[in-house]
Protein backbone atom coordinates (compact mmCIF):
# COMPACT_ATOMS: atom_id res chain seq x y z
CA UNK A 1 0.00 0.00 0.00
CA UNK A 2 0.88 3.63 -0.37
CA UNK A 3 -0.93 6.32 1.55
CA UNK A 4 -1.40 9.85 0.27
CA UNK A 5 -0.46 12.19 3.08
CA UNK A 6 -0.50 15.50 1.23
CA UNK A 7 -1.84 16.47 -2.18
CA UNK A 8 -3.07 19.45 -4.17
CA UNK A 9 -6.12 19.29 -6.44
CA UNK A 10 -6.28 17.30 -9.69
CA UNK A 11 -3.58 14.75 -9.00
CA UNK A 12 -4.83 11.46 -10.41
CA UNK A 13 -4.09 7.83 -11.18
CA UNK A 14 -3.25 7.51 -14.87
CA UNK A 15 -1.87 5.04 -17.37
CA UNK A 16 -1.59 5.22 -21.15
CA UNK A 17 -5.31 5.78 -21.44
CA UNK A 18 -8.51 4.16 -22.50
CA UNK A 19 -8.51 4.27 -26.29
CA UNK A 20 -11.11 2.27 -28.17
CA UNK A 21 -14.26 3.79 -26.67
CA UNK A 22 -14.37 7.15 -28.40
CA UNK A 23 -17.12 5.74 -30.61
CA UNK A 24 -19.36 5.66 -27.53
CA UNK A 25 -18.24 9.08 -26.36
CA UNK A 26 -15.62 8.01 -23.81
CA UNK A 27 -12.46 10.14 -23.80
CA UNK A 28 -9.19 8.23 -23.82
CA UNK A 29 -7.76 10.07 -20.74
CA UNK A 30 -4.31 8.80 -19.76
CA UNK A 31 -1.10 10.57 -18.78
CA UNK A 32 -0.36 14.04 -20.18
CA UNK A 33 3.26 12.92 -20.56
CA UNK A 34 2.89 9.33 -21.78
CA UNK A 35 6.60 9.15 -22.60
CA UNK A 36 7.49 9.63 -18.91
CA UNK A 37 5.10 6.81 -18.00
CA UNK A 38 6.44 4.44 -20.63
CA UNK A 39 10.03 5.08 -19.57
CA UNK A 40 9.35 4.94 -15.83
CA UNK A 41 7.49 1.65 -16.16
CA UNK A 42 10.02 0.19 -18.61
CA UNK A 43 12.92 0.93 -16.29
CA UNK A 44 11.09 -0.79 -13.43
CA UNK A 45 10.26 -3.81 -15.55
CA UNK A 46 6.53 -3.04 -15.44
CA UNK A 47 4.28 -3.14 -18.47
CA UNK A 48 4.64 0.20 -20.25
CA UNK A 49 1.05 0.98 -19.41
CA UNK A 50 1.04 0.10 -15.70
CA UNK A 51 -0.90 2.58 -13.54
CA UNK A 52 1.07 5.46 -12.00
CA UNK A 53 0.34 8.69 -10.13
CA UNK A 54 0.22 11.87 -12.19
CA UNK A 55 1.18 14.81 -10.00
CA UNK A 56 0.48 18.28 -11.35
CA UNK A 57 -0.12 20.25 -8.16
CA UNK A 58 2.54 20.34 -5.47
CA UNK A 59 3.70 19.67 -2.84
CA UNK A 60 2.66 16.04 -2.84
CA UNK A 61 3.60 13.41 -0.23
CA UNK A 62 2.99 9.71 0.08
CA UNK A 63 4.09 7.06 2.56
CA UNK A 64 5.11 3.54 1.59
CA UNK A 65 3.79 0.96 4.02
CA UNK A 66 6.00 -1.75 2.59
CA UNK A 67 9.31 -2.05 0.79
CA UNK A 68 8.99 -0.84 -2.79
CA UNK A 69 10.98 0.27 -5.78
CA UNK A 70 9.88 3.53 -7.36
CA UNK A 71 10.91 6.07 -9.95
CA UNK A 72 9.80 9.67 -10.33
CA UNK A 73 9.78 10.45 -14.04
CA UNK A 74 8.69 13.38 -16.15
CA UNK A 75 9.92 15.92 -13.62
CA UNK A 76 13.01 18.09 -13.87
CA UNK A 77 13.07 18.41 -10.07
CA UNK A 78 14.47 16.11 -7.41
CA UNK A 79 12.07 14.14 -5.19
CA UNK A 80 12.78 13.80 -1.47
CA UNK A 81 12.76 10.44 0.29
CA UNK A 82 12.54 11.04 4.04
CA UNK A 83 13.88 14.52 3.36
CA UNK A 84 16.88 13.37 1.32
CA UNK A 85 17.13 14.48 -2.31
CA UNK A 86 17.04 11.68 -4.85
CA UNK A 87 17.52 11.74 -8.59
CA UNK A 88 14.45 11.77 -10.77
CA UNK A 89 14.45 9.41 -13.77
CA UNK A 90 16.10 6.92 -11.42
CA UNK A 91 14.75 3.77 -9.71
CA UNK A 92 15.22 3.75 -5.94
CA UNK A 93 14.31 1.53 -3.02
CA UNK A 94 11.92 2.80 -0.41
CA UNK A 95 11.56 1.07 2.94
CA UNK A 96 8.28 0.61 4.75
CA UNK A 97 7.33 3.86 6.46
CA UNK A 98 9.43 6.12 4.25
CA UNK A 99 7.86 9.29 2.89
CA UNK A 100 8.28 10.44 -0.71
CA UNK A 101 7.82 14.16 -1.28
CA UNK A 102 7.49 15.91 -4.61
CA UNK A 103 7.97 19.65 -4.87
CA UNK A 104 7.08 21.97 -7.73
CA UNK A 105 9.45 21.07 -10.61
CA UNK A 106 11.66 24.03 -11.67
CA UNK A 107 10.39 24.27 -15.24
CA UNK A 108 8.10 21.41 -16.15
CA UNK A 109 4.46 20.79 -15.32
CA UNK A 110 4.02 17.17 -14.27
CA UNK A 111 5.77 14.39 -12.39
CA UNK A 112 4.92 10.69 -12.42
CA UNK A 113 5.36 8.31 -9.52
CA UNK A 114 5.85 4.85 -11.00
CA UNK A 115 6.13 1.89 -8.63
CA UNK A 116 7.46 -1.58 -9.41
CA UNK A 117 4.46 -3.84 -9.74
CA UNK A 118 2.24 -0.92 -10.74
CA UNK A 119 -0.75 0.40 -8.81
CA UNK A 120 -3.13 -2.46 -8.15
CA UNK A 121 -6.42 -0.99 -9.27
CA UNK A 122 -9.27 -2.72 -11.08
CA UNK A 123 -9.35 -1.58 -14.70
CA UNK A 124 -12.54 0.02 -16.02
CA UNK A 125 -13.11 -0.40 -19.75
CA UNK A 126 -9.59 -1.71 -20.17
CA UNK A 127 -7.74 1.08 -18.37
CA UNK A 128 -6.81 2.28 -14.90
CA UNK A 129 -6.72 5.93 -15.92
CA UNK A 130 -9.04 8.35 -14.16
CA UNK A 131 -11.88 9.69 -16.27
CA UNK A 132 -12.48 12.96 -14.42
CA UNK A 133 -15.41 13.91 -16.61
CA UNK A 134 -17.04 10.50 -16.45
CA UNK A 135 -16.24 10.02 -12.76
CA UNK A 136 -14.91 6.48 -13.18
CA UNK A 137 -11.58 4.66 -13.41
CA UNK A 138 -8.41 5.38 -11.46
CA UNK A 139 -8.89 5.76 -7.71
CA UNK A 140 -12.68 5.90 -7.15
CA UNK A 141 -13.11 7.93 -10.35
CA UNK A 142 -11.79 11.10 -8.73
CA UNK A 143 -8.60 13.06 -7.97
CA UNK A 144 -6.45 11.84 -5.10
CA UNK A 145 -7.22 13.01 -1.58
CA UNK A 146 -5.27 13.02 1.63
CA UNK A 147 -5.72 9.66 3.34
CA UNK A 148 -6.28 7.64 0.15
CA UNK A 149 -4.64 4.23 0.29
CA UNK A 150 -3.72 2.47 -2.94
CA UNK A 151 -2.45 -1.09 -3.27
CA UNK A 152 0.76 -1.90 -5.12
CA UNK A 153 0.97 -4.91 -7.45
CA UNK A 154 3.35 -7.78 -6.76
CA UNK A 155 6.85 -7.31 -8.01
CA UNK A 156 9.31 -10.15 -8.39
CA UNK A 157 12.38 -8.05 -9.19
CA UNK A 158 12.35 -5.99 -6.02
CA UNK A 159 15.98 -6.66 -5.11
CA UNK A 160 17.43 -6.13 -8.55
CA UNK A 161 18.09 -2.41 -8.16
CA UNK A 162 21.46 -1.32 -6.73
CA UNK A 163 21.31 0.70 -3.48
CA UNK A 164 22.49 3.82 -5.33
CA UNK A 165 19.64 3.50 -7.82
CA UNK A 166 19.29 2.70 -11.50
CA UNK A 167 18.95 5.74 -13.73
CA UNK A 168 17.89 6.36 -17.29
CA UNK A 169 19.00 9.20 -19.54
CA UNK A 170 15.93 11.42 -19.71
CA UNK A 171 14.27 11.93 -23.09
CA UNK A 172 15.21 15.59 -23.59
CA UNK A 173 18.86 14.57 -23.30
CA UNK A 174 18.75 11.13 -24.95
CA UNK A 175 16.59 12.42 -27.78
CA UNK A 176 18.01 15.94 -27.99
CA UNK A 177 18.26 15.78 -31.79
CA UNK A 178 14.69 14.47 -32.07
CA UNK A 179 13.04 17.10 -29.86
CA UNK A 180 14.58 20.45 -30.81
CA UNK A 181 14.68 23.28 -28.28
CA UNK A 182 14.23 26.93 -29.14
CA UNK A 183 16.81 29.53 -28.22
CA UNK A 184 14.23 31.81 -26.56
CA UNK A 185 12.70 29.23 -24.25
CA UNK A 186 9.44 28.81 -26.18
CA UNK A 187 8.32 25.18 -26.45
CA UNK A 188 8.42 23.96 -30.04
CA UNK A 189 5.51 21.75 -30.98
CA UNK A 190 5.24 20.15 -34.40
CA UNK A 191 1.87 20.05 -36.09
CA UNK A 192 0.28 19.27 -39.44
CA UNK A 193 -2.35 21.47 -41.10
CA UNK A 194 -5.86 20.15 -40.44
CA UNK A 195 -9.16 20.29 -42.32
CA UNK A 196 -9.98 23.99 -42.08
CA UNK A 197 -6.44 25.36 -42.32
CA UNK A 198 -7.25 26.85 -45.72
CA UNK A 199 -10.15 28.86 -44.26
CA UNK A 200 -7.70 30.99 -42.31
CA UNK A 201 -5.92 32.39 -45.37
CA UNK A 202 -3.36 34.99 -44.17
CA UNK A 203 -4.17 34.20 -40.55
CA UNK A 204 -2.88 30.69 -41.23
CA UNK A 205 0.63 32.15 -41.42
CA UNK A 206 -0.08 34.18 -38.26
CA UNK A 207 -0.91 30.91 -36.51
CA UNK A 208 2.47 29.37 -37.35
CA UNK A 209 4.56 32.51 -36.94
CA UNK A 210 3.45 33.83 -33.60
CA UNK A 211 4.46 32.76 -30.12
CA UNK A 212 1.39 31.68 -28.13
CA UNK A 213 1.00 31.66 -24.40
CA UNK A 214 -0.78 28.90 -22.48
CA UNK A 215 -3.59 30.65 -20.64
CA UNK A 216 -4.71 29.98 -17.07
CA UNK A 217 -7.89 28.44 -18.43
CA UNK A 218 -6.03 25.27 -19.33
CA UNK A 219 -6.27 21.80 -17.88
CA UNK A 220 -6.09 18.11 -18.81
CA UNK A 221 -9.00 18.61 -21.20
CA UNK A 222 -7.40 21.32 -23.25
CA UNK A 223 -5.04 24.25 -23.41
CA UNK A 224 -6.43 27.64 -24.34
CA UNK A 225 -3.83 29.78 -26.02
CA UNK A 226 -3.52 33.55 -25.81
CA UNK A 227 -2.14 35.63 -28.64
CA UNK A 228 -3.28 37.63 -31.65
CA UNK A 229 -6.64 36.11 -32.60
CA UNK A 230 -6.81 34.29 -35.93
CA UNK A 231 -10.05 34.37 -37.88
CA UNK A 232 -11.39 32.25 -40.70
CA UNK A 233 -12.42 34.14 -43.83
CA UNK A 234 -15.72 32.31 -43.79
CA UNK A 235 -17.98 30.91 -41.08
CA UNK A 236 -18.66 27.27 -41.82
CA UNK A 237 -21.34 25.08 -40.27
CA UNK A 238 -19.40 22.02 -39.16
CA UNK A 239 -21.03 18.69 -38.44
CA UNK A 240 -19.80 17.03 -35.26
CA UNK A 241 -16.89 14.70 -35.93
CA UNK A 242 -14.43 12.65 -33.93
CA UNK A 243 -11.39 14.43 -32.55
CA UNK A 244 -8.20 13.28 -30.84
CA UNK A 245 -5.77 14.95 -28.43
CA UNK A 246 -3.60 17.42 -30.29
CA UNK A 247 -6.35 18.84 -32.46
CA UNK A 248 -6.06 22.64 -32.54
CA UNK A 249 -9.51 24.17 -32.84
CA UNK A 250 -10.32 27.83 -33.29
CA UNK A 251 -13.51 28.93 -31.52
CA UNK A 252 -15.25 32.17 -32.58
CA UNK A 253 -12.96 34.35 -30.40
CA UNK A 254 -9.97 33.39 -32.55
CA UNK A 255 -7.73 32.07 -29.77
CA UNK A 256 -6.90 28.41 -30.41
CA UNK A 257 -7.63 25.51 -28.07
CA UNK A 258 -5.42 22.42 -28.14
CA UNK A 259 -7.28 19.36 -26.93
CA UNK A 260 -5.29 17.28 -24.46
CA UNK A 261 -5.59 13.87 -22.74
CA UNK A 262 -9.15 14.35 -21.47
CA UNK A 263 -10.19 15.71 -24.89
CA UNK A 264 -13.80 15.54 -25.77
CA UNK A 265 -14.39 12.76 -28.31
CA UNK A 266 -16.27 14.98 -30.74
CA UNK A 267 -15.93 18.54 -31.94
CA UNK A 268 -17.24 21.01 -34.42
CA UNK A 269 -15.04 24.10 -34.29
CA UNK A 270 -12.85 24.77 -37.33
CA UNK A 271 -9.51 23.03 -36.84
CA UNK A 272 -6.41 24.72 -38.13
CA UNK A 273 -3.85 22.04 -37.28
CA UNK A 274 -3.12 18.86 -35.33
CA UNK A 275 -0.08 18.27 -33.10
CA UNK A 276 1.90 15.18 -34.07
CA UNK A 277 1.29 12.44 -31.53
CA UNK A 278 4.94 12.13 -30.44
CA UNK A 279 5.10 15.82 -29.48
CA UNK A 280 2.03 15.75 -27.24
CA UNK A 281 4.14 15.02 -24.16
CA UNK A 282 6.02 18.28 -24.65
CA UNK A 283 2.74 20.13 -24.44
CA UNK A 284 1.78 17.97 -21.45
CA UNK A 285 4.93 19.22 -19.71
CA UNK A 286 4.35 22.89 -20.64
CA UNK A 287 3.11 24.95 -17.72
CA UNK A 288 0.36 27.52 -17.67
CA UNK A 289 1.92 30.83 -18.71
CA UNK A 290 4.64 29.25 -20.81
CA UNK A 291 5.17 30.22 -24.44
CA UNK A 292 5.00 27.93 -27.41
CA UNK A 293 5.32 27.95 -31.15
CA UNK A 294 3.92 25.50 -33.64
CA UNK A 295 6.31 24.16 -36.24
CA UNK A 296 4.80 22.98 -39.49
CA UNK A 297 5.69 19.32 -39.90
CA UNK A 298 5.09 16.39 -42.24
CA UNK A 299 3.91 12.81 -41.92
CA UNK A 300 7.46 11.68 -42.77
CA UNK A 301 8.93 13.73 -39.94
CA UNK A 302 6.26 12.50 -37.50
CA UNK A 303 7.10 8.93 -38.47
CA UNK A 304 10.82 9.50 -37.94
CA UNK A 305 10.16 10.91 -34.43
CA UNK A 306 7.84 8.01 -33.64
CA UNK A 307 10.52 5.49 -34.63
CA UNK A 308 13.25 7.27 -32.69
CA UNK A 309 11.07 7.24 -29.56
CA UNK A 310 10.29 3.54 -30.05
CA UNK A 311 14.02 2.72 -30.35
CA UNK A 312 14.78 4.71 -27.20
CA UNK A 313 12.12 2.92 -25.16
CA UNK A 314 13.24 -0.47 -26.47
CA UNK A 315 16.77 0.45 -25.47
CA UNK A 316 15.64 1.35 -21.92
CA UNK A 317 13.82 -1.99 -21.62
CA UNK A 318 16.72 -4.07 -22.90
CA UNK A 319 19.39 -2.27 -20.88
CA UNK A 320 17.35 -2.28 -17.67
CA UNK A 321 16.72 -6.01 -18.10
CA UNK A 322 20.42 -6.68 -18.64
CA UNK A 323 21.51 -4.63 -15.63
CA UNK A 324 18.98 -6.35 -13.40
CA UNK A 325 20.04 -9.81 -14.56
CA UNK A 326 23.68 -8.94 -13.96
CA UNK A 327 22.93 -7.63 -10.47
CA UNK A 328 20.99 -10.76 -9.67
CA UNK A 329 23.92 -12.88 -10.82
CA UNK A 330 26.29 -10.96 -8.51
CA UNK A 331 23.90 -11.09 -5.57
Amino acid sequence: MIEIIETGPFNTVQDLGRPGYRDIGVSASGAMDPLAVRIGNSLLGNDEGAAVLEIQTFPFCLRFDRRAVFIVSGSDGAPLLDGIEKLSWCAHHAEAGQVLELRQPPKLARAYVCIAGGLDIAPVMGSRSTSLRGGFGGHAGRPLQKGDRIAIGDDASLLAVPPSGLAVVEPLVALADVFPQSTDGAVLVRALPAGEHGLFAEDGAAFWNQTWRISARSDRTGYRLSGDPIMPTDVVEMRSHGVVPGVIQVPPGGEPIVQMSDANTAGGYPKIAGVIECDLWRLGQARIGSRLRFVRSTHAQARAVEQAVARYIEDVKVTSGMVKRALKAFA
Partner: protein
Amino acid sequence: MIATPNKHVPRHQIVPLGQNRARISSIGARSFLLEAPGDFDLASQRRIWALSQTLKGWADLAEIIPGMTNLLAIFRETPEEPEQIIDRLCAAWDAAQSIDLSGKTIEIPVHYGGEFAVDLAALCDLSGLTDQEVIRLHHQGTYRVFALGSAPGFGYLHGLDPRLYMPRKTVPSLKMEKGCVTIGGMQTGVAMLTGPNGWNSIGFAELQMFDPLSPMPAMMAPGDTVRFVPERIEL
Protein backbone atom coordinates in the same frame (compact mmCIF):
# COMPACT_ATOMS: atom_id res chain seq x y z
CA MET B 1 -17.43 7.91 -58.17
CA ILE B 2 -13.80 8.85 -58.38
CA ALA B 3 -11.71 10.84 -55.95
CA THR B 4 -9.88 13.05 -58.39
CA PRO B 5 -6.39 13.76 -57.18
CA ASN B 6 -5.70 17.45 -56.75
CA LYS B 7 -2.26 18.13 -58.18
CA HIS B 8 -1.85 21.56 -56.62
CA VAL B 9 -1.93 20.93 -52.89
CA PRO B 10 -0.17 18.16 -51.01
CA ARG B 11 -2.86 15.51 -51.12
CA HIS B 12 -2.00 14.06 -47.78
CA GLN B 13 -2.99 17.31 -46.17
CA ILE B 14 -6.44 18.08 -47.45
CA VAL B 15 -8.52 16.52 -50.19
CA PRO B 16 -11.34 18.96 -50.91
CA LEU B 17 -14.97 18.04 -50.89
CA GLY B 18 -16.29 17.51 -54.39
CA GLN B 19 -19.69 17.06 -55.90
CA ASN B 20 -19.76 13.36 -55.14
CA ARG B 21 -16.41 13.10 -53.54
CA ALA B 22 -15.55 12.63 -49.91
CA ARG B 23 -13.27 15.19 -48.29
CA ILE B 24 -10.29 13.82 -46.41
CA SER B 25 -8.06 15.70 -44.01
CA SER B 26 -5.77 14.74 -41.18
CA ILE B 27 -5.66 15.48 -37.45
CA GLY B 28 -2.09 14.98 -36.29
CA ALA B 29 -0.16 12.31 -38.16
CA ARG B 30 -2.19 9.20 -37.37
CA SER B 31 -5.81 10.29 -37.74
CA PHE B 32 -7.71 10.89 -40.96
CA LEU B 33 -11.15 12.46 -41.19
CA LEU B 34 -13.43 11.53 -44.06
CA GLU B 35 -16.41 13.83 -44.61
CA ALA B 36 -19.25 12.65 -46.81
CA PRO B 37 -20.46 14.95 -49.55
CA GLY B 38 -24.10 15.95 -49.66
CA ASP B 39 -26.78 16.61 -47.12
CA PHE B 40 -26.97 15.89 -43.44
CA ASP B 41 -29.42 13.05 -43.90
CA LEU B 42 -30.02 9.39 -43.21
CA ALA B 43 -28.78 8.35 -46.68
CA SER B 44 -25.33 9.84 -46.05
CA GLN B 45 -25.21 8.36 -42.57
CA ARG B 46 -26.10 4.89 -43.82
CA ARG B 47 -23.13 5.06 -46.12
CA ILE B 48 -20.91 6.14 -43.22
CA TRP B 49 -22.16 3.10 -41.30
CA ALA B 50 -21.25 0.92 -44.29
CA LEU B 51 -17.78 2.49 -44.47
CA SER B 52 -17.36 1.90 -40.75
CA GLN B 53 -18.12 -1.82 -41.25
CA THR B 54 -15.52 -2.07 -44.03
CA LEU B 55 -12.87 -0.32 -41.99
CA LYS B 56 -13.33 -2.77 -39.10
CA GLY B 57 -11.40 -5.21 -41.27
CA TRP B 58 -8.31 -2.99 -41.55
CA ALA B 59 -5.59 -4.36 -39.29
CA ASP B 60 -3.59 -1.12 -39.23
CA LEU B 61 -6.46 0.86 -37.71
CA ALA B 62 -6.56 1.47 -33.97
CA GLU B 63 -9.96 3.12 -33.77
CA ILE B 64 -12.90 4.12 -35.96
CA ILE B 65 -15.13 6.97 -34.83
CA PRO B 66 -18.22 7.51 -36.96
CA GLY B 67 -19.50 11.07 -36.61
CA MET B 68 -22.33 12.99 -38.23
CA THR B 69 -21.94 12.03 -41.91
CA ASN B 70 -18.21 11.71 -41.33
CA LEU B 71 -15.73 9.24 -39.91
CA LEU B 72 -12.42 9.59 -38.10
CA ALA B 73 -9.98 6.74 -38.70
CA ILE B 74 -7.11 6.51 -36.19
CA PHE B 75 -4.13 4.44 -37.32
CA ARG B 76 -1.86 2.50 -34.97
CA GLU B 77 1.19 4.31 -36.25
CA THR B 78 1.98 7.17 -38.56
CA PRO B 79 1.59 5.78 -42.07
CA GLU B 80 4.67 5.63 -44.24
CA GLU B 81 2.67 6.67 -47.28
CA PRO B 82 -0.17 9.01 -46.29
CA GLU B 83 -1.11 9.21 -49.97
CA GLN B 84 -1.91 5.52 -49.92
CA ILE B 85 -4.13 6.00 -46.89
CA ILE B 86 -6.08 8.67 -48.77
CA ASP B 87 -6.44 6.35 -51.75
CA ARG B 88 -7.59 3.46 -49.58
CA LEU B 89 -10.13 5.63 -47.74
CA CYS B 90 -11.43 7.10 -51.01
CA ALA B 91 -11.73 3.63 -52.53
CA ALA B 92 -13.51 2.31 -49.44
CA TRP B 93 -15.90 5.26 -49.52
CA ASP B 94 -16.60 4.79 -53.24
CA ALA B 95 -17.30 1.11 -52.67
CA ALA B 96 -19.39 1.66 -49.53
CA GLN B 97 -22.99 0.64 -50.08
CA SER B 98 -25.77 2.06 -48.00
CA ILE B 99 -26.58 -0.21 -45.10
CA ASP B 100 -29.29 0.12 -42.55
CA LEU B 101 -28.27 -0.96 -39.10
CA SER B 102 -31.07 -2.98 -37.56
CA GLY B 103 -30.92 -1.30 -34.21
CA LYS B 104 -33.17 -1.65 -31.22
CA THR B 105 -35.92 0.75 -30.22
CA ILE B 106 -35.42 2.77 -27.05
CA GLU B 107 -38.28 4.58 -25.34
CA ILE B 108 -37.22 7.44 -23.13
CA PRO B 109 -39.76 8.76 -20.62
CA VAL B 110 -39.54 12.56 -20.51
CA HIS B 111 -40.74 15.16 -18.08
CA TYR B 112 -41.33 18.05 -20.51
CA GLY B 113 -41.25 21.59 -19.15
CA GLY B 114 -40.53 22.23 -15.48
CA GLU B 115 -37.35 23.42 -13.83
CA PHE B 116 -34.90 21.78 -16.25
CA ALA B 117 -36.62 23.07 -19.41
CA VAL B 118 -34.66 26.30 -19.21
CA ASP B 119 -34.76 27.00 -22.95
CA LEU B 120 -38.36 26.07 -23.74
CA ALA B 121 -39.52 29.70 -23.72
CA ALA B 122 -36.69 30.75 -26.04
CA LEU B 123 -37.57 27.93 -28.44
CA CYS B 124 -41.21 29.09 -28.48
CA ASP B 125 -40.03 32.62 -29.30
CA LEU B 126 -37.73 31.40 -32.05
CA SER B 127 -40.20 29.00 -33.66
CA GLY B 128 -43.41 30.95 -33.08
CA LEU B 129 -44.94 27.77 -31.67
CA THR B 130 -46.67 27.37 -28.33
CA ASP B 131 -44.97 25.29 -25.65
CA GLN B 132 -47.57 22.56 -26.16
CA GLU B 133 -46.85 22.44 -29.90
CA VAL B 134 -43.10 22.27 -29.29
CA ILE B 135 -43.56 19.35 -26.92
CA ARG B 136 -45.98 17.58 -29.24
CA LEU B 137 -43.64 17.90 -32.22
CA HIS B 138 -40.72 16.66 -30.14
CA HIS B 139 -42.40 13.55 -28.71
CA GLN B 140 -44.18 12.66 -31.94
CA GLY B 141 -40.88 12.39 -33.77
CA THR B 142 -39.09 9.13 -34.49
CA TYR B 143 -35.35 9.53 -34.15
CA ARG B 144 -32.34 7.55 -35.28
CA VAL B 145 -29.06 7.41 -33.36
CA PHE B 146 -26.58 8.64 -35.98
CA ALA B 147 -23.49 8.42 -33.83
CA LEU B 148 -22.28 8.56 -30.23
CA GLY B 149 -19.79 11.07 -28.93
CA SER B 150 -19.07 14.16 -26.91
CA ALA B 151 -19.91 12.53 -23.58
CA PRO B 152 -19.98 8.86 -22.49
CA GLY B 153 -23.04 7.27 -24.07
CA PHE B 154 -24.36 10.47 -25.63
CA GLY B 155 -26.27 9.77 -28.85
CA TYR B 156 -26.70 12.37 -31.57
CA LEU B 157 -30.31 11.90 -32.68
CA HIS B 158 -31.46 12.71 -36.19
CA GLY B 159 -35.08 13.22 -37.18
CA LEU B 160 -35.96 16.47 -35.42
CA ASP B 161 -38.87 18.37 -36.96
CA PRO B 162 -37.31 21.33 -38.82
CA ARG B 163 -39.69 23.68 -36.97
CA LEU B 164 -37.75 22.81 -33.80
CA TYR B 165 -34.26 23.52 -35.15
CA MET B 166 -32.52 25.84 -32.73
CA PRO B 167 -28.87 26.90 -32.93
CA ARG B 168 -26.49 26.01 -30.14
CA LYS B 169 -25.94 28.82 -27.65
CA THR B 170 -22.97 31.07 -28.26
CA VAL B 171 -22.45 31.15 -24.49
CA PRO B 172 -23.04 27.64 -23.10
CA SER B 173 -25.03 27.02 -19.93
CA LEU B 174 -22.36 26.52 -17.29
CA LYS B 175 -24.08 23.74 -15.42
CA MET B 176 -26.73 21.82 -17.29
CA GLU B 177 -27.99 18.75 -15.44
CA LYS B 178 -27.40 15.24 -16.66
CA GLY B 179 -30.73 14.03 -18.08
CA CYS B 180 -31.75 17.27 -19.77
CA VAL B 181 -33.50 16.63 -23.08
CA THR B 182 -31.88 19.04 -25.47
CA ILE B 183 -31.87 20.44 -28.99
CA GLY B 184 -28.65 21.46 -30.74
CA GLY B 185 -29.13 22.75 -34.28
CA MET B 186 -30.85 20.01 -36.28
CA GLN B 187 -30.22 17.40 -33.60
CA THR B 188 -31.68 16.33 -30.32
CA GLY B 189 -30.30 14.25 -27.46
CA VAL B 190 -30.18 13.64 -23.72
CA ALA B 191 -27.34 15.23 -21.71
CA MET B 192 -25.18 12.48 -20.19
CA LEU B 193 -23.09 14.58 -17.83
CA THR B 194 -23.78 17.56 -15.62
CA GLY B 195 -21.66 20.44 -16.86
CA PRO B 196 -21.24 23.13 -19.50
CA ASN B 197 -23.58 22.57 -22.42
CA GLY B 198 -24.46 24.68 -25.43
CA TRP B 199 -27.65 22.81 -26.34
CA ASN B 200 -31.16 23.98 -25.46
CA SER B 201 -33.09 22.12 -22.78
CA ILE B 202 -36.83 21.45 -23.06
CA GLY B 203 -37.29 18.62 -20.58
CA PHE B 204 -35.72 15.98 -18.38
CA ALA B 205 -35.25 12.19 -18.55
CA GLU B 206 -34.34 9.91 -15.61
CA LEU B 207 -33.28 6.92 -17.71
CA GLN B 208 -29.77 5.63 -16.93
CA MET B 209 -28.03 5.38 -20.31
CA PHE B 210 -24.36 4.76 -19.48
CA ASP B 211 -22.69 2.32 -17.08
CA PRO B 212 -18.89 2.11 -17.27
CA LEU B 213 -18.90 -1.23 -15.42
CA SER B 214 -21.25 -2.95 -17.86
CA PRO B 215 -19.86 -5.07 -20.72
CA MET B 216 -21.98 -2.84 -22.98
CA PRO B 217 -21.48 0.54 -21.28
CA ALA B 218 -23.63 2.62 -23.65
CA MET B 219 -27.34 1.92 -24.00
CA MET B 220 -27.56 3.62 -27.39
CA ALA B 221 -25.80 2.40 -30.52
CA PRO B 222 -25.71 3.85 -34.03
CA GLY B 223 -28.81 2.81 -35.93
CA ASP B 224 -31.06 2.56 -32.87
CA THR B 225 -34.49 4.13 -33.02
CA VAL B 226 -35.44 6.47 -30.19
CA ARG B 227 -38.85 7.69 -29.11
CA PHE B 228 -39.55 10.19 -26.38
CA VAL B 229 -42.60 9.35 -24.28
CA PRO B 230 -44.15 12.27 -22.39
CA GLU B 231 -44.36 11.07 -18.82
CA ARG B 232 -45.32 14.44 -17.47
CA ILE B 233 -45.87 17.86 -19.01
CA GLU B 234 -45.38 20.79 -16.69
CA LEU B 235 -46.08 24.18 -18.23
